[in-house]
């Protein structure tokens, strides 16, 4: 019998773990990028004082509270207000003029984490004067972060960084006019939330969102393997109206994907793409 290396055993155990989670809990992590997933599985094993990944399987199959904790740990929700200011500047300069030509603008912010990106977008729409004829669908599969996003309350300690980001994003006003600070918290103004619909949506297992003009999905696809990236990008393509825009994170690209030929790059460096009108393959689920 061939000798098994430790890493090969762990890879097998991880496959079994992900299969078990999928079949027992319905969450499908089987096509998440393994390298960073391994780190979090390792952490869960260590935190639970367990000897092997296989011990984690029985824990997560039987213990609901342990599974909830695991789920929270699996969702990396690190985010910022106006993260990558040059991206927001580019969005303003290049995409907004097109968006304004549509009578009603539907925007999907997929993987919105704790909502900072959503409020940034809402501020941008307000300043550009078409917030009132827009709707933002903000989704994530993490219910805990979605609850934070709905509240829109953030640590005051982060305001300094957010203000700097805002100022570098081509913004026209003062960031202080969008929140109310109290003690160590800052609450975003209710008006920013008015046309936002927060909802639970899992990009791996849930369906298409209809006829979006703009989709933002930043720093989410890096957690998926190429096959799952392709599947999710096809979901986005089916959810975008012809001529609609797709924005990815600063280090994400369509380059190695199956949908590359259905988009043109609007801003290469900032990863803003536009769905081409012609020769589009219609995908109806």
């Amino acid at each position, binding site marked *: 019998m*061939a000798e098994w290396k430790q890493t090969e055993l762990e890879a097998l155990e991880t496959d079994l773990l992900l299969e078990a989670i999928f079949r027992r809990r319905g969450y499908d992590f089987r096509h998440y*990028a393994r390298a960073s997933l*391994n780190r979090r599985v390792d952490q869960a094993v260590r935190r639970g004082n367990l000897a092997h990944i296989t011990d984690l399987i029985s824990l997560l199959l039987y213990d609901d509270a342990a599974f909830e904790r695991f789920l929270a740990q699996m969702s990396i929700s690190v985010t910022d207000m106006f993260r990558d200011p040059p991206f927001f500047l580019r969005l303003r300069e290049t995409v907004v003029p097109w968006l304004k030509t549509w009578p009603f603008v539907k925007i999907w912010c997929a993987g919105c984490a704790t909502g900072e990106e959503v409020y940034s977008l809402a501020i941008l729409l307000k300043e550009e004067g078409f917030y009132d004829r827009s709707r933002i669908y903000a989704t994530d599969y993490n219910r805990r972060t979605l609850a934070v996003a709905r509240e829109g309350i953030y640590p005051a300690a982060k305001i300094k960084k957010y203000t700097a980001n805002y100022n570098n994003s081509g913004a026209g006003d003062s960031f202080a006019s969008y929140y109310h600070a109290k003690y160590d918290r800052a609450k975003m103004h209710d008006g920013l939330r008015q046309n936002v619909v927060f909802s639970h949506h899992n990009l791996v297992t849930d369906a298409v969102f209809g006829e979006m003009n703009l989709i933002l999905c930043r720093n989410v696809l890096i957690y998926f393997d190429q096959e799952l990236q392709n599947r999710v990008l096809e979901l986005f393509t089916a959810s975008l109206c012809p001529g609609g825009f797709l924005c990815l994170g600063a280090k*994400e690209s369509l380059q190695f994907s199956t949908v590359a030929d259905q988009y043109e790059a609007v801003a290469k460096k900032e990863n803003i793409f536009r769905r081409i009108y012609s020769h589009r393959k219609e995908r109806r689920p």
Partner: protein
Amino acid sequence: MSDGFRAVVIGASSGGVAALATVLGQLPAGFGLPVIVVLHVPEEGGTGYLPTLLGERCSLPVREASDKLPLAPGTVYLAPAGYHLLVERDGNSLSLSVDEPVHFARPAIDVLFESAATAFADGLVGVILTGANQDGSAGLKRIKELGGTAMVQNPASAAAEAMPRAAIAATAVDQVLGLTEIGRFLAAAGACSSPPTSDRRP
């Protein structure tokens, strides 16, 4: 020590640009392994200028790593500022993450080294260069545990000695050398290596 090297990972922090230039400068064109590098840089500054800067000082192409980028031999990949850089477990491609910083660093050397150790096992050479913190020690230890080769810059010759010292304390390091010697060792390792595509397991 394995004779079939498949990749090199290097971690450097303060004083790292000059140190990297010296090490990479020793690698000849046609070097047979991918070289994957984490250099601590301030998140705001970015790494945009580094590939050009280092590229001018060595014979290999130097590029910033992007998500799902396939690894090619004889190419140097630099982690972008603000992202962890990881090697996927098949050893064929890179991925990025925005997980929390490790040791206040993102990119963190530990994150790269631990993932690369899993992917390449005894086919990996890990190198810790100058730096003023502890990052990389846990990763280098992991590389040793999985049969890889560990090299550390001689602390006495390092611009900042804390990181090399911590690495030497963390594990049984194979070689403690000056920068030029590290470069020469790597050049030899990359010259006699089997091509990375040849899978040594059935």
